[in-house]
């Protein structure tokens, strides 16, 4: 039986744009796994993040659409004002439930839903950010046997988010990777695991 492959979920806030560009920018368009994430940074007005990210990225970058099935080679971002959750059939759900960690979208609900729906098939990537969102969810993913890739705080513009994850995720379930190495790491993992 064909394996369904992993799903990469990520989160970031302050310093997140550069971190996303560096971490995912070089992944090829035929990268096997979908990448789904939350970036807190959104002020008012039109949401430009997908366009901004798409410029330096080979992956197809888009806002997550409710009920849409995830596909490899795509990078999905939670739209402003909505939490993004993943279902067992690997489709997206959006909710307007109350803010989590002062934010909507928040990283924890995404990670927690990935842990519950996809178990050890989820890979969490925690990037630069100036708050603790995502740590709880990363812990849940680790508890389900999923891997957590944590940006080396020394290479993060804001280190609180990776540090918070580092503090709660057991050492056996995590790798700490310098920002510029995250892309190559994910690429190698995709090739080795999927090949």
């Amino acid at each position: 039986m064909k394996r369904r492959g992993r799903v990469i979920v990520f989160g970031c806030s302050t310093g997140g744009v550069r971190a996303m560009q560096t971490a995912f920018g070089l992944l090829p368009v035929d990268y096997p796994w979908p990448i789904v994430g939350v970036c807190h940074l959104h002020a008012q007005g039109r949401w430009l993040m997908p366009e901004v990210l798409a410029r330096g990225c080979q992956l197809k970058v888009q806002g997550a659409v409710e009920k849409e099935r995830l596909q490899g080679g795509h990078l999905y971002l939670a739209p402003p004002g909505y939490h993004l959750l993943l279902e067992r059939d690997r489709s997206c759900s959006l909710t307007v439930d109350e803010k989590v960690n002062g934010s909507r979208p928040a990283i924890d609900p995404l990670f927690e839903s990935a842990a519950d729906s996809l178990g050890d098939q989820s890979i969490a990537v925690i990037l630069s950010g100036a708050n603790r969102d995502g740590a709880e969810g990363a812990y849940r993913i680790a508890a389900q046997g999923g891997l957590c890739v944590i940006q080396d705080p020394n290479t993060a513009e804001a280190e609180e988010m990776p540090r918070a994850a580092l503090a709660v995720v057991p050492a056996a379930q995590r790798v700490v990777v310098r920002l510029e190495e995250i892309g190559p790491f994910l690429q190698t993992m995709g090739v080795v695991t999927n090949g």
Partner: protein
Amino acid sequence: MKPSEIEEVEIDLFVEALRLRHGYDFRHYGRASLRRRLLALQRLFGVAHLVDLLPRLLREESVLSKVLSALSVPVTEMFRDPEVFSVLRQEVVPVLRSFPRINIWQVGCATGEEAYSLAIVMAEEGCLQQCQIYATDINDAALATAEAGIFHARRLALYSDNYRLAGGKAKLTDYCRAHLDVMEMDVALRRAMVFAHHNLVADGVFCEAHLVICRNVLIYFDRHLQDRSLALVRQSLVRGGYLCLGLQESLDAYAGKEEFYPVDRLLRIFRLRADGGGR
């Protein structure tokens, strides 16, 4: 079986008990968000497992309202997505005004902030007297708040900003009295509004409507229930009636989508074609 798989069984059992005992059917709700809310419910009751709640769900009448409140978390604000209200005001209300009587049905009104926002728009456009706003929800506790029209004043600044961005013509405080930490909505608005219990999952058409506002309700449903709900909404609309969905909702997967055309595609405002049957 993994613990997470056992939890899935527990969710099925809970949902089934809720349906068989109380007649509320959550089988077609989106699973991931349902799971989240049931987990919150579990914490609220301080039980280790969801099944520990089953005896109380079955035997204690008072538990139901707490369960429904937890499963339909009321999260709303006045003039949320102000640009939607701005377009309703500019494009939709001028057409509605030509009807001698205007019925608006707001589905899933929660604590009523959007319904009051609509009433303010209608008042400013001079047609509140001919207007009836029916606002419905399954959460009776939320409906009671809506009915009272008393909201926490800590959000007044946000609401005022929204109101202004939505093209408000006066000051939001002209429509409410702020005292201490609450804001009390004007009774003149309240007279045009009816708050009622209605379950989109099980109940029929609520009223004949010229405008249906159903925002951020469908995202909680699976495709099956989305279809059923949209068919119901469609049935309630008069010819040429309007439908307003949430910014992340669409008619794309709905079988009857051809009967509608977009008034504003981005803001998810649609109109039922005048030759589309209607009521």
